[in-house]
Structure formats: structure tokens, C-alpha cells
């Protein structure tokens, strides 16, 4: 049987191939779609296999490619950590591949070239795979920026609208800055160790000051990509405007690659753990989680909402990482591992259900060409399968048992609850607050997705084209189905899964979670059996028995229900316009947390003399963080351009002054 690395190489070469074929098959769109789907599935499967092999065998495979700098070839390394993330990429890619077969059909008659779509999707995947495989800073940076650049082109795919162009610009700009910051972080490590290979960096002895500098730079860089506050501004702009399966890739997978990068740099390369770092990560994580979900609640654009909720989930992941660092800094390896595994688990979960939700949104776009919640409604009866899968996604992301989201959040809580083990009293009192924020986040997330599902899929259609919505093609449904299935599986069988990824903490923290899985596949006991235990399968079984019972009753048809008009307290039969809107649903929460948003609300008369109500809820980050920077640059630019006055004598004057000045300097 070929080695894991071989499969990884296969995946990479397939993705390169899929980047090339559109050039040749663009005139036969159908063939193009078939080939792309095929290749994407192959990529996914190959990546998945290689990842699984690595995880199960815990072997570290390395290789060197004759590319890059003459004295620094591309080093490749496939260890448990990369194995985990490569399999994550794999799973989602398969689903995306199947989905895209039906979805891309919508673009065949559009103006935008399919070459760009297919080609850059391939490059995007290549970039992500290579980032995970890279074992030296140079290759890492190249693949990292390749990932950013190609995804930028995908964001700019629908470039007719100025808003999309702006989003793409913002995205690329921030990606570039983040990349440079990562590069510098590597620069610090490299200049302290010898050379840019990760081996050298691991070996390097790094004093605290420099290590912290490197940590900050890396955190800024990767945090920017992961969309942590306040560096998240690009995310809700860029993710929604890309084609939906790309949004799924970006939100589901690319953000996880950022998580991978941070883990790689901090846990693996720097290999030090200081409580200051832990606190930083924890704080930023909690804030992102809370504000992310609050902003998500306020959105009416479905994909934008999903994007903001990605901010929230990444926040949760970073809470886990922060906890892990904290516990490591006081050398409670076991608890640190629990938090670490929780973070990994949530990365995978978020990859699954966020992609699932984006694919759902894509299906709505595909069949009704609508992504504004205010116009949706009653889709469950028009596209039942999508409705079901989307519901599963909503339950998972709201972290409700027995689905996967709950497991990771539960684990995070379990880690946070071990705070009594810490020595430092300050930390002991800080962690519970983080836990409280996490709890609040979870509850708000539930509210958010009740809103989404209730407005979009339940009730009555609020617009004509939604009323005409039809079920999407089989391929798209299968794509969503796979992800939904994984959501369920990971929710039901956390124990086998955790024992599967146990090699990752073994490699990174050199500690395993054997006790978590000690009590058989039914019981998940992260710390110890009598501390806490969770029997997901039993809960699921009970629920399914109950459902089965209900369905059986229905099926027996004795107690059939009679259809009638809605009662609605005896008022006139409700019309679609009488339903609660998305804005209305969020209004109470908006009112409670009003301080955190920039709300412009007002009523005025329009030209026809009708009274119109307008409400604009925007992100505070813009006013507080981005606008000032932009203004400063503009000011500086307009000042500096004065020296290009157009008068030649002034120019000569400049030269003369410079000359005299320099002569004075050197004398």
C-alpha cells in the first residue's frame, strides 16, 4: 500500500490538474463540469486517505522538492497535525466537488469565464494542501499567498457589482498585510535559529522577548486570516460574494488553515507556553465569539450572516487554544490536551456544518436566486431535502446535542471548569468569565439559527421567486447530505473519533487523551469518569426512538391530523406579510445589546410621499479601527503629492537642497 505522502502528492497533483483542465475544456462546459467534479472528489479522497493513514500510523514522512531557493529547497512534512488538517480539507472537498456539479451549471450562461472559476478553485486547493504540507517558511509563505491570491480571484468572480470589487480589494489587502506579518514572525525565528526550515526553528533557543514578538506577529497574521476581531472586517465582505461552494471552502476550510498555521507556529515551532500569550488568545477569542454571533444575529443577508457566524466559531476555537496555552504554561498537560482536542474538534465541526450551511444557502440561490432572508420563507416544503440538511446544520452550529457542535463546546467547557487547578488566582477568576462568555455565545448562536431557519424555511414565502423555488439537482443534495451525515456521526461517536486524532496531541503536546476514551465507545470522559461524562449515542438513541414512535403513530394513520386554517387567536387567516421578519426577530436582542452596534434608524417620506423606515446596523470596527487608518494614508498621500508641483525650478531646488544637506551630513 502506498505511503500517506504518496496520497498527499496525488491530491496536490490532481488539484493542479484541475486548475489546468478548464483551459482546454471550456468550450464543452458539460465535460468540464464532469471532469472538475471527478477531480475534486479524487483530490478529497486522496487527501482524506493520506490524512487518515498519517493519523492512524502516527508516522512522520518528510520529503524535499527541487523547487524554491537554491540553498532552501521546498521541504515537505506530513505529521499527525498536518494529517488532521489535510483530512479536514479532504472531507469538505469531496462534498464541494459533488455539489459543484449541479451548482456551476448556473454560471455556464453567465459572462464570467469558467476558466477562472475552475482554474482558481484548483489553485486554491493546491495552496491549502501545500500550506499544510510545508516544512519550511519559504514554501509555507508561497503556498499561503497562493491560497490568498487564488481565493481573491474567486471572490472577485462576480465583479460586476462595485461592492464585490471592494470586498475583493479589502480581502486581498488584509491578506497581504497578514502574510507579511507572518513572514516577519518567521523572520524572527529564522534569525534566531539558523535558516528557514522548520527543523531549524524547532531547534532554536528563543528568548522570551523575541518569542513574544514572533508570537504577536504570527497571531496578527493568522488571526487576520481567521477573522478574529478587530481584524475580521474583510471576512463578512468577502465570503458572501464568492460563489457559494467557494464561500464554503473559504469559511469551512481556509479559516482552519489559519488555525493550523497558528498551532504550527506557536505549539510546534516556538514550543513555549506563557500565560500572557494564553490570556491574549483567550481574550481575543472570547470577544470574537461574542461579537461575532451578535453581528451575525443582526444580518439579513443569509451568506453574510453565515460569514459573521464563522467569526464566532473561530473565536470558540481560539478560546480552546488559549485555554490550552494557559494550562500548558502551568504544565497541566492533561487539561491542556482536553482544550487542544476541543479546539481541533471544533475546527473539524465548523468545517463541516459551516460548509453545509453555505451549500444550503447556495441551493437557495441556485433555485430561487435569493439570499435576502426578508424575502424567504416556507422553503422547507419547497425543497425538503435541503431543508432537512440545513436544519441539521443549524442544530449542529447551535451546539445542541446530539450533534457534533455540542461535543466540542462541551469539551471546551470541561477544560474551562478545571480552572481550580491553576495556581494563579487572577487566571482562576479570569477563566470563568471566558466560560460565561462562551455560554452566552452558545445561547445567542441558538437564537441566531432559530431565526435563520424559522425565517428562511418555515412559515410562508415572502416573495414570488421564493414561491417558485424548486428542489435542487441530486448532485447538490448529495453534497449536502455527506456533510450532514458527518455532522451526525461526529456528534454520535465522539469517542472513536477522539481516539483517532489522539496522535495529534501526542505529537504537539506529547500527551494523549487515553482516559477520555477509556470507558468504551459509549462514554466520553475527558478528565475522569466521575468528573464528567457524556453518552452521546444513548441520547441519540432515545431521541430516535421517540421520533420513530411519533412517525409510527402518524404512519398508522389512525390519529391523522386534519388540515385547517391557522387559528392565530381567531384573527383573519394570516398573510405572508403578517409574519415576523428577520429584523423583527432580532429586535429584542438588538435592543438589549444596542451599545455594541452602530445603528442608524429613521423614518422619512420618499418621493411618493409614502413613509419609509430605514434601519442600518453596522460594525463598530469600521469607525473605530479602519476608517482612521484609511484617513491617515489619504492625508499623507495628499500632503506628499505637493512635492510634485510641476515647477522645474522647485525640482532643481529640491536637488540642490538635498545635495547641500548631504554634504553637510557627511562633513
Amino acid at each position: 500500500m502506498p505511503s500517506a505522502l504518496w496520497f498527499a502528492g496525488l491530491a496536490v497533483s490532481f488539484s493542479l490538474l484541475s486548475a489546468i483542465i478548464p483551459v482546454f475544456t471550456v468550450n464543452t462546459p458539460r465535460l468540464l463540469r464532469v471532469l472538475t467534479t471527478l477531480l475534486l472528489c479524487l483530490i478529497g479522497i486522496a487527501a482524506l486517505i493520506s490524512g487518515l493513514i498519517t493519523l492512524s500510523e502516527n508516522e512522520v514522512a518528510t520529503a524535499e522538492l527541487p523547487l524554491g531557493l537554491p540553498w532552501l529547497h521546498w521541504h515537505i512534512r506530513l505529521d499527525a497535525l498536518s494529517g488532521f488538517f489535510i483530512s479536514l480539507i479532504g472531507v469538505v472537498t469531496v462534498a464541494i466537488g459533488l455539489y459543484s456539479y449541479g451548482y456551476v451549471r448556473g454560471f455556464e450562461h453567465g459572462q464570467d469565464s469558467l476558466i477562472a472559476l475552475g482554474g482558481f478553485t484548483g489553485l486554491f486547493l493546491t495552496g491549502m494542501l501545500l500550506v499544510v504540507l510545508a516544512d519550511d517558511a519559504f514554501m509555507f509563505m508561497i503556498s499561503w499567498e497562493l491560497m490568498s491570491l487564488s481565493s481573491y480571484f474567486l471572490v472577485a468572480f462576480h465583479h460586476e457589482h462595485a461592492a464585490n470589487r471592494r470586498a475583493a480589494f479589502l480581502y486581498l489587502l488584509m491578506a497581504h498585510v497578514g502574510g507579511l506579518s507572518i513572514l516577519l514572525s518567521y523572520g524572527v525565528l529564522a534569525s534566531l535559529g539558523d535558516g528557514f526550515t522548520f527543523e531549524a526553528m524547532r531547534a532554536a533557543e528563543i528568548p522570551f522577548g523575541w518569542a513574544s514578538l514572533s508570537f504577536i506577529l504570527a497571531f496578527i497574521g493568522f488571526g487576520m486570516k481567521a477573522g478574529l476581531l478587530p481584524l475580521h472586517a474583510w471576512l463578512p465582505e468577502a465570503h458572501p460574494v464568492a460563489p457559494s461552494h467557494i464561500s464554503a471552502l473559504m469559511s469551512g476550510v481556509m479559516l482552519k488553515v489559519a488555525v493550523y498555521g497558528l498551532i504550527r507556529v506557536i505549539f510546534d515551532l516556538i514550543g513555549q507556553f506563557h500565560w500572557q500569550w494564553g490570556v491574549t488568545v483567550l481574550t481575543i477569542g472570547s470577544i470574537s465569539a461574542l461579537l461575532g454571533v451578535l453581528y451575525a444575529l443582526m444580518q439579513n443577508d443569509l451568506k453574510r450572516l453565515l460569514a459573521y457566524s464563522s467569526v464566532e466559531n473561530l473565536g470558540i476555537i481560539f478560546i480552546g487554544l488559549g485555554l490550552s496555552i494557559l494550562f500548558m504554561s502551568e504544565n497541566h498537560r492533561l487539561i491542556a490536551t482536553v482544550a487542544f482536542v476541543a479546539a481541533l474538534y471544533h475546527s473539524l465541526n465548523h468545517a463541516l456544518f459551516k460548509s453545509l450551511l453555505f451549500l444550503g444557502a447556495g441551493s437557495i440561490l441556485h433555485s430561487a436566486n435569493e439570499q435576502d432572508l426578508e424575502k424567504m420563507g416556507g422553503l422547507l416544503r419547497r425543497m425538503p431535502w435541503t431543508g432537512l440538511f440545513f436544519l441539521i446544520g443549524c442544530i449542529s452550529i447551535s451546539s445542541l446535542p446530539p450533534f457534533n457542535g455540542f461535543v466540542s463546546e462541551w469539551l471546551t467547557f470541561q477544560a474551562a471548569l478545571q480552572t481550580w487547578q491553576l495556581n494563579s488566582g487572577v487566571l482562576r477568576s479570569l477563566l470563568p468569565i471566558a466560560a460565561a462568555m462562551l455560554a452566552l455565545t452558545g445561547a445567542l448562536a441558538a437564537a441566531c439559527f432559530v431565526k435563520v431557519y424559522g425565517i428562511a424555511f418555515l412559515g410562508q414565502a415572502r416573495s414570488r421567486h421564493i414561491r417558485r423555488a424548486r428542489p435542487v439537482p441530486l448532485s447538490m443534495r448529495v453534497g449536502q447530505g455527506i456533510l450532514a451525515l458527518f455532522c451526525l456521526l461526529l456528534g454520535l461517536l465522539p469517542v472513536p473519533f477522539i481516539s483517532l486524532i489522539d496522535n495529534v496531541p501526542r505529537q504537539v503536546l506529547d500527551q494523549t487523551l487515553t482516559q477520555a476514551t477509556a470507558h468504551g465507545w459509549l462514554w466520553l470522559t475527558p478528565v475522569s469518569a466521575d468528573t464528567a461524562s457524556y453518552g452521546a449515542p444513548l441520547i441519540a438513541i432515545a431521541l430516535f426512538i421517540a421520533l420513530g414512535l411519533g412517525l409510527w403513530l402518524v404512519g398508522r394513520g389512525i390519529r391523522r391530523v386534519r388540515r385547517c386554517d391557522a387559528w392565530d387567536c381567531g384573527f383573519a387567516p394570516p398573510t405572508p406579510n403578517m409574519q415576523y421578519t428577520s429584523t423583527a426577530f432580532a429586535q429584542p436582542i438588538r435592543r438589549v445589546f444596542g451599545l455594541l452596534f452602530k445603528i442608524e434608524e429613521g423614518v422619512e417620506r420618499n418621493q411618493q410621499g409614502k413613509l419609509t423606515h430605514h434601519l442600518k446596523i453596522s460594525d463598530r470596527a469600521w469607525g473605530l479601527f479602519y476608517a482612521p487608518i484609511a484617513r491617515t494614508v489619504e492625508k499623507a498621500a495628499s500632503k506628499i503629492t505637493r512635492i510634485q508641483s510641476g515647477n522645474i525650478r522647485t525640482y532643481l531646488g529640491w536637488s540642490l537642497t538635498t545635495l547641500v544637506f548631504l554634504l553637510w551630513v557627511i562633513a
Partner: protein
Amino acid sequence: MNLQISLLALVQLVLYALLAPLVAGWIHWVKAKLQNRCGARIFQPYRDLYKLFNKEARMAHTASQLFRASPYIVFTATLLAASAVPLLSINLPTAAIADIIAIAGLLALSRFFLALAGMDVGTAFGGMGASREMLVSALAEPAMLVAVFTLAMTAHTTNLASLVGFQLTETFVLRPSFMFALAALVLVAIAETGRIPVDNPSTHLELTMIHEAMILEYSGRHLALMEWAAQLKLLLYGTLLTNVFFPWGIAQDLSLTSLAIGLLSLIAKLLLLGIILAISETVLAKMRLFRTPAFLNLALLLGLLGMLSHVILEIGV
């Protein structure tokens, strides 16, 4: 032995299901007495449920299948949650399935579907109820978890059975954190079970209703399940409060006597609790919806204070 335990678990489950309407009935009765009404008999809720189960269930044209599935899910989730809360005895196998966080999760699940069911028909009231319910729960859930964390950090476990066991084993000490936690949990329980002053269970056709607004469209067995689930939830919170903070009398072994003592003490506690609740509901008035956040923030604050006083006062080094 093992058989006995699982049997006991089953008994407790059934007991929950059976006791729930009784508690509701008891509270109604006491309230009626307090308000100088003769009021309905204590067993009235059983009659209502029976009647509803036999009535034909009707569904709006606009309702989807989710509308039909929800009652079952809601009821089961609540029952599951209940099954993990020690009722008579602390050695409860089902407690290992779901620790306190999982219980919160299960309750959240039932609430999730309750709210969705409310929105399914597409009436104004349903959406209103769902929106408000989610607001209340969004604030109540963290408060509850924080309060529970305080206990969990003291007992070093989130498993309720072990938690109660810890309470029983350790010598009686005054823990400021527990007082805060208790206060917080009481407030949360009131909010979550939709009692005055947050919501009025006996209201109808009011613009202030929350829980009722969501189940407005239900009828027949669906409605019965929903009502039953609500009563279960009430009982669940009651047991949680009493057995965690005042575990006295709960059975620690499987001898019939101790079980009997457990049952009696439980009934006593519940009666007492019912009276207290009834009194409070009689003297208090329901507050405006937008006063509720303040109410729940207080709960959250208490929970946090409890946690902080725990880490600072009790294990502070």
C-alpha cells in the same frame, strides 16, 4: 444489583412523567386558595392531558412536517434531561449519560424546536413568541451555566449525581458561592419555566405572552405533549434546586426504606417549593418584556459573583 439500579432509573423516569402534572396542579390549587378562589382540583392537569390526547389534532395548511415532529422531540429531550437529575437516589446510571452541561444542552434542544414550531405556521404571534423565548433563554442559559459552574468547580464534577453526593458527604459549611448560585438558579428557573414575573403561564391572547404564543397553533396530542413537557421542565428545575442545594433525605443506597424516605422528603420539598412559588406569583406582578433582561442580568451577575467568590474566597491562595 445492576439490574436494580437500571430498574430504579426507569422508576425515576416514570415518576418524573407522573409527578410533573401533579406539581403543576398543586401550584394552581395553592394559588387559587391564596386568591380566595375555590379553583380546580389538584389532579386537574391529568384530566386535561387525557382529554387532549383523545382530541383530534389539527394543523394549519401552512404548517410543515417539522410542526408535527416538534412535540415529540421537545417532550423526549425534556424527559431525557430530567432522567439525568437525581430524584430519589443519587446512584443513578442515567446521570452518566448527561452531565449538567448536557442537561442544559437538551433543554436548549427542546427550546430550539419549540421556537421553530412556533414560527412554522407563519403567524405573527408564533414569531413573536419565538423571538422573545430566544431572548430570554439567550440570557438565562449562561446565567444557569455560570451558576452551575460554581457548584461544579467546588465539587470538581459536572455530573449531577456526584455533585449531590458531594453535597451529602461533606460536612455542612456555609459557602457564599452556593448562596449566590442558588439565588441565580432560582431566577433562571423562574425565567426558563415561564413563570411570573417573566411570563404568565395562565395568560392567553395577551401581547405579553411568550410560551403560550409559541404553542398557540397546537391542538390535540401535540398540545398535550407540549404542555406535559412544560410541566416536566418545571419539575426538573424544582428537583434541581431542591436536591442540589438541600439534598437531605435523598437515598444513598438501594434499601427500600431509604428510597421511601427519599420519596417522602422529595414530596415534602416539592410541596414547599410549590407553596413558595405560588405565593411569589400571587404577590408579584408580571414585568414588561424589556425589564426581563435586567432581571436575567441580575441572575448572570449573581452567578458570576458566586464563581468569583468561589475562586477568591474559597480556594484563593
